[in-house]
């Protein structure tokens, strides 16, 4: 209430009005939010296109949960504005925005039946009985809850309740659907199933949606695009593939799944990591001698016993297998790579550097590799095996310190 006077600061720098995607349904422009003196969100900008699903992915305390109430009108931003289909709704109260919120707890009205819950939005809009009944019937069919229409929310399973919550918002044709940690309250199996169900449902109704989650797997599966948020800032927005394979920084790389990170330096068109020189795949805009980080995923690593790398891969180092774990679909191998020697040198003794945390940990680094089951069974690896470490794909990032631990301490 205090921050009523919205101070629209100069945010023109960040608004990219020229997008060739379908028309923008929802945009958030230069939103920041403070609770007292703690800043929770800083200059948040994103657009959601018609029919698109955007996932806001962040750890707890990243500020992600504050975004939904601001879009829904339940909280007032400190600066910035919220646009729904081109209309500035920042000053409108929640009930005039026509936004559909699916709360984490679903917030179904406990004293109303499924039917009454779904029809609520139309009843308070004083629509005709016939129209309400038809809409409710359609929606019950859409979410496949026809036979539960006269039940009360407490008689439904979590997934069914969620579908009622979605149908309840779809009844009044919302501008955008906002999902707050939609699968947080469900067990792992139901989660995956519901995820695909909701994805299919959204495709059918073609309503733009914004999901809030901390689960990277969920984000990758649900989103047309993902916005990774950290300490109140958006680190990167992109398609799941972009964000996963071309992370903008180390934080994004690590947050979206396991990532190995090696420090290196640019040297004459190559990246020097320890004794290995790795050629750039594509053009780059790093200056000579710049410190960089080499980031690669465990599945981008292939381990070979011979020193010659498979086609289209480059060998970065040799290493010693420390641990192998069989984890179902694949095998996870911990390899301690030796960066002090050149890739092909031979020194068979020295088993004692298996003791980790040695002073020369600068030159010997542990990395994680995963191998699909067929490969794991074909070429068995065991502790102490010497292998060549080859990369099929990697990302080079400038070596910048991670976002400072600002005074963003408030848990949101």
């Amino acid at each position, binding site marked *: 209430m205090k921050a009523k006077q919205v101070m629209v600061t100069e945010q023109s720098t960040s608004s990219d009005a020229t997008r060739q995607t379908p028309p923008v349904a929802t945009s958030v422009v230069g939103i920041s939010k403070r609770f007292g003196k703690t800043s929770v969100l800083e200059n948040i900008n994103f657009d959601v296109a018609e029919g698109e699903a955007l996932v806001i992915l962040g750890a707890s305390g990243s500020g992600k949960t504050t975004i939904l109430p601001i879009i*829904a009108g*339940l909280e007032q931003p400190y600066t910035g504005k919220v646009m729904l289909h081109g209309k500035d709704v920042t000053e409108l109260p929640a*009930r005039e925005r026509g936004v559909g*919120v699916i709360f984490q707890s679903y*917030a179904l009205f406990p004293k*109303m039946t499924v039917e009454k819950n779904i029809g*609520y939005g139309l009843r*308070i809009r004083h629509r005709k009985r016939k129209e309400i009944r038809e809409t409710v019937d359609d929606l019950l069919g859409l979410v496949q809850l026809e036979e539960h229409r006269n039940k009360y929310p407490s008689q439904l399973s979590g997934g069914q309740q969620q579908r009622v919550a979605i149908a309840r*918002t779809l009844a*009044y044709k919302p501008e955008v659907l906002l999902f707050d940690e939609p699968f947080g309250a469900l067990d792992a199996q139901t989660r995956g199933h519901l995820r695909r169900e909701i994805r299919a449902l959204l495709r059918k109704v073609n309503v733009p949606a914004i999901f809030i989650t901390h689960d990277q797997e969920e984000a990758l599966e649900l989103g047309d695009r993902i916005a990774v948020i950290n300490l109140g800032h958006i680190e990167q927005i992109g398609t799941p593939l972009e964000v996963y394979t071309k992370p903008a920084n180390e934080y994004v790389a690590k947050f979206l799944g396991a990532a190995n990170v090696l420090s290196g330096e640019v040297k004459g068109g190559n990246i020097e990591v320890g004794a290995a020189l790795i050629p750039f795949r594509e053009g780059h805009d790093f200056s000579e001698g710049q410190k960089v980080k080499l980031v690669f995923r465990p599945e981008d690593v292939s381990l070979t016993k011979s020193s010659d790398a498979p086609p289209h891969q480059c060998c970065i180092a040799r290493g010693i297998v420390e641990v192998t774990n069989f984890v179902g679909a694949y095998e996870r191998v911990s390899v301690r790579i030796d960066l002090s020697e050149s890739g092909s040198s031979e020194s068979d003794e020295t088993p004692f550097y298996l003791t980790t945390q040695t002073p020369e940990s600068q030159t010997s680094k542990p990395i994680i590799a995963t191998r699909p089951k067929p490969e794991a069974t074909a070429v068995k690896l065991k502790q102490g095996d010497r292998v060549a470490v080859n990369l099929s794909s990697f990302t080079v990032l400038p070596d910048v310190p991670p976002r400072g631990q600002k005074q963003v301490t408030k848990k949101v």
Partner: protein
Amino acid sequence: MSSIVPTMRHVRGFDVARPLSIGVLVFMMLPLVFLPLASIFIFGTSKGLASFWAALMAPEAIFALKLSMVTSFWATLFNVVFGLFAAYVLSRYNFWGRNALIVTISLPTAIPTAVAGFALLLLWGPYGILGRFLSPHGIQTMFTAGAIILANIFVTFPLAFGVIKPVFDTMSRSLEEASATIGATRVQTFWHVTLPSLRGAIVSGALLTFARAVGEFGSTILVSGNLAGRTQTAPLYIFAKFNEGQIEAANAIAIVLALFSFLIFSVLFFARDWLDVD
């Protein structure tokens, strides 16, 4: 040692504590609660139902019962609506002096009813702080049915509030937020979402208030003037008839009041589940 396996079945020793403690409990309650209640019925019906009925049908008796019901009804209505409003304000908004207000609302439970009645007289009575300005204009609040309602309101003030407030406190805010995002106004949200969740609390709060108001004596005897057929409530009638030595007349009303409170408490007890049913 291991060869001596006891084959005898374990028989738990007879637990003396259980029947003994139950017995003591019942025995203690006998002279304190059961027997006094029983004697109302034993005495009241000792001369036959006909005389009980005659005592009950005395015009003053009927008037007293009616007056009690009517004044209690208005006091209950006021206190439930007020309690609902107070609980809403005090659980939704945080402000300076909030706790002081909560304590003040709850205070009347701790004040002796005679003191409450006396306080009302000092305010509204013909020589009271406000009453002295009203009485020259012919406005007389004390010694009327209105005074009884005022006394009832004062004495039962915190009851409905006390039942409704905790329900408000535990109610999830997201229900109301959901209703708002769906497009409901505050009034619609209150009517369709908040109020249904409070149904049980409102009914039990009302019953408690009503039961307490019907039986109110201490404050009523001071503010009503105790005029038979005009401002005499049922408890006052019992007291007056007892003083006049008309035990039967007093007893008939006492039976009605006792049965009435049984009824209210069984509704409270058995209807809880029904009221909270989804």
